């Protein structure tokens, strides 16, 4: 174990997997000479050379398709989206090519590709650069979707994603890159996809949250302890496939659930989790599952509006209190 940043953990995962498997290569805008727009690929060009660290022009659909084609014939590309917002330009390649080729070919071809990069809001990047992008992917059969919240998870899950034989959408966060934490340096250490983790044990209510919202939920949990509310926080880590057992298990124990998500609320990840939890733990629920979500608006630039756009600790705490005193749900937004 060593203390390193989330960014360094990703970098280490890439280096280890590139050393381990000659078929793994990194491709995207500014990943080489520039060492990555967010420095996640720092040093890779120097270490592995231009054959395996490939700078591309701005052509998301083109170079994502290049990755898919290369994967079809046996390579294992790690495609960097400088930010995931730009993946919309490559969505057809991801949804209609990457996700479906294995199925359409009756299992003859597969697409072992990882598409990674930062997603979600950062600091005043405004509407086109601050979107929770997972919503475009986790619905799609054939894709796996990962959102790693800690340096340890970043490393362990990225390694699993690279070793996975299926297309994996791996969405990081600009706001977490600098965060430090304990990370295993064992090259054999991985975290399997599809396993949620309990970040904090509690008995009264289960809060399901990932990335920045998970940390906000942890703060809310701490602040509520004195009020005698014991909060359990579950981080799904992988959104597809989702770890039903851990999430449902926790709710069966606490009898209450709050789902927090940074993105707009309508038809977001929280909808699936809430629906799912209710289906499978209905009789154990003492209150309806609450969703605390981002406002249903594009992301504004102004700092004060931006702050108000995503769920605050206060709103999370209110929601937790509401379910614990099982009142009705917060007005729909």
């Amino acid at each position, binding site marked *: 174990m060593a203390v390193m940043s989330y960014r360094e953990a990703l970098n280490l995962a890439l280096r280890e997997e590139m050393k381990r498997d000659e078929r793994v*290569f990194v491709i995207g805008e500014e990943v080489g000479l520039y060492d990555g727009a967010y420095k996640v690929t720092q040093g890779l060009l120097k270490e592995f050379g231009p*054959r395996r660290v490939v700078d*591309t*022009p701005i*052509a998301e*659909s*083109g*170079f*994502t*398709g*290049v*990755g*898919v*084609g*290369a*994967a*079809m*014939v*046996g*390579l294992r590309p790690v495609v960097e989206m400088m930010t995931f917002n730009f993946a919309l330009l490559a969505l*057809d*390649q991801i949804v*209609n*090519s990457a996700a479906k*080729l*294995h*199925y*359409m*070919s*009756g*299992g*003859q*071809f*597969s697409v*072992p590709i990882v598409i990674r990069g930062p997603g979600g809001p950062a600091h005043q990047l405004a509407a086109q650069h601050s979107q929770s992008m997972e919503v475009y992917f986790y619905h799609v*059969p*054939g894709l*796996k979707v990962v959102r790693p919240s800690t340096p340890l998870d970043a490393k362990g899950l990225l390694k699993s994603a690279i070793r*996975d*034989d*299926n297309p994996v959408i791996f969405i990081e966060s600009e706001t977490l890159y600098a965060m430090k934490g304990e990370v295993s340096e064992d090259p054999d250490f991985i975290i399997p996809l*599809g396993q949620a983790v309990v970040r904090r044990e509690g008995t009264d209510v289960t809060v399901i949250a990932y990335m920045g919202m998970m940390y906000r939920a942890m703060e809310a949990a701490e602040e509520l302890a004195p009020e005698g509310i014991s909060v359990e926080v579950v981080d799904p880590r992988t959104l597809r*496939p989702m770890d039903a057992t851990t999430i449902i298990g926790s709710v069966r124990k606490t009898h209450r659930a709050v789902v927090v998500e940074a993105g707009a609320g309508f038809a977001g990840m929280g909808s699936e989790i809430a629906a799912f939890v209710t289906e499978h733990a209905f009789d154990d629920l003492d209150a309806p599952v609450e969703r605390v979500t981002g406002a249903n608006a594009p992301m504004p630039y102004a700092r004060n509006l931006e702050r108000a756009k995503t769920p605050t600790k206060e709103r999370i705490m209110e929601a937790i209190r509401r379910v614990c005193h099982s009142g009705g749900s917060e007005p729909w937004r």
Partner: protein
Amino acid sequence: MTLNIEADLARRLLGDMVLIRRFEEKAAEAYALGKIGGFLHLYIGEEAVAVGATSVLRRDDYAIAAYREHGHCLAKGSDPRRVMAELYGRRDGLCKGKGGSMHLFDASVNFLGGHAIVGAHLPLAAGVGFAIKYRSTDQVIVCYFGEGSVPQGEFHEALNLSALWKLPVIWLCENNRYAMGTAVDRALAQTEIWKYGQVYGIPGESVDGMDVLAIRDVVARAVDRARKDKTPSLIEARTYRFRGHSMRDPAGAVYRSKEEVEREKLRDPIVLFRQRVLEAGLLSAADVRAVEKDVNDRIDDATTFADASPEPPPEWLLTDVYRDGS
């Protein structure tokens, strides 16, 4: 006039073209009988392109195409029985019945599909070219596409990447002058497709898409450039589709006249080639009959095989979604 090819080759080229033609005529019948569903896009009239191009490829070279790909798949060497079974949606189809007419894949002959989003398979082809170079083998990939994908951005992205990175890709445009009901001059400010490569320094040539030997020559040169010095090429094969866009579209619809279609049919690549080999005395009438007889047997065999193949088992709905079955 003489032809500087061997009789064997003549037999093979003729046989492959006739095979594709008969195969699709049968498929059309089967479609009418409801044995084939969905969209069915026939390649009839364009056979010389896939056959000519494939005839200069090695078996380990790759080919990728759009949704009008029966001909490319068969030319590459796929078993007509399994192709027909796929069109029928049966368990013995190339793709277990999951792909259908628009999504034929055959790993055993390096045929990479069968793609139904216009323009989307071009970046895939560049990716295969990238992988070839990455592994430093001397394979090449031929990417067939219609002129309808030229206005699509991915065509240009793929062209630039193939030139910038020097990828062994042969961009082979099958310009049949229509994208569904849209004549090429209503879709593109420049209708000479081969010219689109010039700005990237990609060698470009146009060729009579009805002349299987001409296509052979042009593609052979391109394959050579690709194998030897990893240079991409852009070839425009001027061809014509004798049938409608798909079985749902009449042959002579509003967008083109019956007369035009009839006139074009006089360029039938099979008729022309048969004539030439006969005139050149390369094959005898008996040889030709033998070729056609053999093809007919194989097609009958294919339909029998497809008819006999059962539906895929229900549980296959949920298999092949993920590689590890997860």
